């Protein structure tokens, strides 16, 4: 995985987001085993404690689970992944709508624009 960080926000939140994105977009597959905390921390260039915190957070949300001796895995529950995918999409869209509202662009105009762009593409 490629990791990129914005220095103005907590690292663990950004780790959670990037893992979530990788899982819902299929970069990391359902049931896939993750590297150890230490190796992941090294890969991302972050503190192992921070990585641990992010992974615990993702376990709480149900995207990851730990098998006591075997390690940490991505959930096999595809419904759960789909649910979080929907949630993420909803969140992004509402952010986008907010930005558009700040620019003074109405939802109808956005719809028209989307339709136009779709036509141009095809």
């Amino acid at each position, binding site marked *: 995985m490629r990791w990129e*960080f914005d*220095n*103005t*926000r*907590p*690292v*663990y*939140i950004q780790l959670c987001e990037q893992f979530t994105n990788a899982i819902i977009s299929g970069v990391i597959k359902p049931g896939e085993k993750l590297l150890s905390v*230490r190796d992941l*921390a*090294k890969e991302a*260039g*972050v*503190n*192992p*404690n*921070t990585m641990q915190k992010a992974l615990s957070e993702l376990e709480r949300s149900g995207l990851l689970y730990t098998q006591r001796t075997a390690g940490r895995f991505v959930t096999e529950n595809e419904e759960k992944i789909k649910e979080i995918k929907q949630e993420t999409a909803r969140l992004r869209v509402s952010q986008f709508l907010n930005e558009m509202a700040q620019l003074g662009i109405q939802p109808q105009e956005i719809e028209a624009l989307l339709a136009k762009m779709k036509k141009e593409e095809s």
Partner: protein
Amino acid sequence: MTPILTCEHLTKTYGVFRALDDVSFTIEPGKIVGLLGENGAGKSTLLKILAGMLTKTSGSAQIDGNEPGVLTKSYVSYLPDKSYLQEWMKLSDLFALFSRFFADFDLQKAQGMAKDLGLSEKARLKAMSKGMQEKVHLILTMSRHAKLYLLDEPIGGVDPAARDYILDTILTNFNEDASILISTHMIADVEQILDEAIFLKQGKLILHAPVDELRETHHQSVDALFREVYRS
């Protein structure tokens, strides 16, 4: 958890000048803590006291329950801001020296790191570039299985690639029961690996907090926050 390091009202004066002024904080095991401050803020003074190289004027410092001294040197690994090694020595000489000096020195680990860097054990310090010499110092420091690592400006004059290597080495070689206190003024480069930040200003501790908490409350990088704090 019992703190690995406890400083209470730690003070160091040189005549009327207060190099460290009533500094109190604790560090728990398993933490990487950034000691941040401009030149002359007291970073090196604090590390030297903890390393047992300098005597405090008043207050107390306890490292795993002991005052800095001969005993603590056996489990505190200190990387000073200036080289203290003899330039004629070869890497193999340095490894032998450290093996004799420190019971917790892991020779195999040091040899492994030197190999990764493509350093020959026959190479003399004198013949190495500044960046290489800094890496050698870091290898020696991080190859000890210490409880507390004190790193004074480990990423000072090195290029970005060497900096990445050094930070990587710190991350990989740090075990869960040990803590690292790392001083630097290049905050942007290290803030991603820090658990906590301590800001020193004119010998005083002005802030000690988890990095993620600082970002959460101030919505800015520790680097930006630092600049703000020092401007005022």
